[in-house]
């Protein structure tokens, strides 16, 4: 006979059976039975955050860096609503999370009980799926299903709402070995006929472009992608979510695309004749004006999610399947056909791309007396040997990190791409550092984003997380200021960060090391010193040039060929 356990014990046992390492959470009334069980064990390490948003972002960072699902436990009511921003962040970027929300006892549901909120209703539009557990007998099977749904197909967050009485009631425990959901059968194998069609189109391309997104990273398909690109010798661009899937320092990589993508990537998108989209979803920040998007391209699109195909852009060869499977099959076909990589020296398409590259679109003033934010990221790359995990918040600093830290490996660049959640950087870095205690973890942030989840500095101290916070402090919400400069006639409405704290003292008040850097000559030394503190969190407050903007930029409603370039550039005048 199987063991009789209380719901709270079942919860803990099921997580152990699921192989959960870390549980990011915050206690409260509805989950006290569970917390009591957590107290009695030490297999699962509970990480006590300082705000439930931090719990979801930390679990999210852990998931992005490791590929394993992040697990969160929060209480009912405000615990659940505070977690929503993090759940929505994970949803937009297809990150596997399993989030447990406490709930008032079943007999009180709907009664406006203390700390009651309709968690299922509130989270429904921003989860892959959610479950309300009404009977303790359903708890173990629901947990099994939740992990399966979160991690299979196109991954995403799953919420399980657990009423308090369910955690007190007793039933037999057995963790299911397999899971079968009749209404959920993700298709992973691409259609062979479509793959063949794609191979033919690829081999006939004259001006090809490989455009890859976060799906390649989620499916751990970097080696298949690299093989694919090298077999062909085609240019590769990555989306913001896809950076690191193809080595950033490789000569075939021509930079990120989209709103702040490189000139060469965006021009190549505009002029290519065959576009191979892999695990990317044609997001508006990538495509610009859809009417002007890739006007001459025949498009192949590989994605696990059928709903992502032909959603924004009609494609000629859709292939529904896992990126790994489809690329392996494509690579096999290409090898059988005996393709050889194009010669970058003589190939006219590559010659054209080199012409575009000569513009040096990411150029910035290296002789400035003020600290240039781009220079800080370049120095960070040198000091960390290009080998750090880099999380970021949202805004200009995020774009500079994406442009200037050349990610050579997947799962190293961790940012909120879809939802664009300020406050993501620090807590997500906690999840990464917990997963990889001996690795260098940098959180690139700005003074505005950073304070949105600044309370997590306490969590970092409690768990000895030696994160290096690189704050590019320009005393503005930089991206808002940039838009106001360009599109609102320099009316800087409420984007100035007045009354900022002394960040050095702030770091020290939380028990960490704080540094302020104001001279460009000190940037690299400061970073070296910070990373020499192996056991300490160091907050580096870089006082940067306030007027710096992110270039290139495609304004809303413009096409890839209509970039706004840095003012010193000749091409901007040509384009204007």
């Amino acid at each position, binding site marked *: 006979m199987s063991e009789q356990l209380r719901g709270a014990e079942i919860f803990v046992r099921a997580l152990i059976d699921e192989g959960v390492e870390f549980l990011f959470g915050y206690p409260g009334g509805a989950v006290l039975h569970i917390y009591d069980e957590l107290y009695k064990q030490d297999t699962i390490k509970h990480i006590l955050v300082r705000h439930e948003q931090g719990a979801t972002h930390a679990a999210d960072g852990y998931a992005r860096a490791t590929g394993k699902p992040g697990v969160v436990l929060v209480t009912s009511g405000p615990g659940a609503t505070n977690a929503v921003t993090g759940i929505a962040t994970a949803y937009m970027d297809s990150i596997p999370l399993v989030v447990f929300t406490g709930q008032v006892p079943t007999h009180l549901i709907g009664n406006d009980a203390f700390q009651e909120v309709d968690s299922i209703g509130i989270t*429904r539009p921003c989860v892959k799926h959610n479950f*309300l557990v009404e009977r303790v007998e359903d708890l173990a099977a629901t947990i099994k299903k939740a992990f399966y749904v979160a991690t299979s197909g196109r991954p995403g967050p799953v919420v399980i709402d657990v009423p308090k009485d369910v955690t007190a009631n007793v039933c037999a425990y057995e963790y299911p070995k397999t899971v079968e959901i009749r*209404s959920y059968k993700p298709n992973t194998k691409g259609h062979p006929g479509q793959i063949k069609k794609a191979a033919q189109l690829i081999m006939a391309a004259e001006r090809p472009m490989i455009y890859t997104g976060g799906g390649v990273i989620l499916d751990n398909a970097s080696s298949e992608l690299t093989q694919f690109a090298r077999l062909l010798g085609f240019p590769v661009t990555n989306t913001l979510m896809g950076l690191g899937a193809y080595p950033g320092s490789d000569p075939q990589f021509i930079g990120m695309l989209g709103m702040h993508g490189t000139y060469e990537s965006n021009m190549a998108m505009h002029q290519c004749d065959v576009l191979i989209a892999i695990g990317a979803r044609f997001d508006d920040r990538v495509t610009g004006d859809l009417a002007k998007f890739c006007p001459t391209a025949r498009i192949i699109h590989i994605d696990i*999610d*059928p*709903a992502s195909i032909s*959603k924004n852009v009609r494609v000629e060869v859709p292939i529904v399947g896992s990126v790994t499977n489809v690329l392996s099959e494509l690579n096999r076909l290409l090898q059988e056909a005996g393709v050889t990589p194009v010669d970058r020296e003589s190939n006219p398409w590559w010659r054209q791309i080199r012409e575009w590259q000569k513009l040096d679109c990411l150029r910035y003033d290296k002789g400035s007396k003020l600290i240039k934010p781009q220079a800080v990221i370049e120095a960070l790359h040198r000091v960390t040997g290009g080998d750090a995990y880099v999380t970021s918040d949202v805004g200009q600093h995020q774009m500079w990190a994406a442009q200037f830290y050349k990610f050579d490996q997947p799962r190293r660049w961790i940012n909120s791409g879809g939802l664009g959640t300020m406050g993501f950087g620090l807590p997500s870095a906690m999840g990464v550092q917990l997963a990889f205690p001996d690795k260098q973890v940098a959180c690139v942030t700005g003074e505005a984003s950073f304070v949105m989840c600044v309370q997590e500095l306490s969590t970092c101290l409690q768990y000895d997380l030696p994160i290096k916070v690189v704050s590019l402090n320009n005393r503005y919400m930089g991206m808002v200021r940039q838009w106001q400069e360009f599109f609102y006639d320099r009316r800087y409405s409420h984007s100035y960060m007045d009354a900022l704290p002394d960040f050095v003292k702030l770091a020290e008040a939380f028990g960490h090391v704080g540094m302020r850097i104001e001279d460009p000559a000190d940037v690299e030394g400061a970073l070296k010193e910070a990373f020499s503190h192996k056991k300490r969190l160091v907050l580096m407050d870089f006082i940067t040039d306030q007027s710096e903007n992110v270039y290139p930029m495609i304004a809303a409603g413009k096409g890839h060929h209509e970039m706004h370039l840095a003012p010193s550039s000749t091409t901007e005048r040509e384009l204007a």
Partner: protein
Amino acid sequence: MRHTISILLENTAGSLSRVAGLFSARAYNIESLSVAPTEDPTVSRLTLVTRGSPEMIEQIVKQLNKLVDVIRLIDLNEGQSIERELMLVKVRAIGAEQRAELARLSDIYGGRIVDVTESSYIIELTGDGEKLDAFIETISAKRVLEVVRSGALGILRGTKALRA
């Protein structure tokens, strides 16, 4: 274009709200929706009528399929199908002449009088939406006290069946 989509859905708490929520979140329109459990009580069947461009209908079908609770669905426009709607109309029926005329009209439309008082009838009628509209027009809207309609139900012709 108008499309009728038949959906088999897990009959669990909140599953209907996932379908309805999808439509509101993505700004799709629901013209009518009717739901009831099937012969298998764990499965509900929905008939959903919507309108949109072919691209929008393709997205609606894909997004519905993506919902974990959706077991199977079919766009009835892709084949030959039968669509019916049930209507109950409460009408003012006073005086022998008027009552006889209403009974006659109901007969012509294949309806049935299911409730009778001294001054009113309730007429039950099934058919496609156009037929029901036509009936209301025929009996004259002035006489109508109340109308309740079920929304469309649809099923494919022939032996092909939508089953869980």
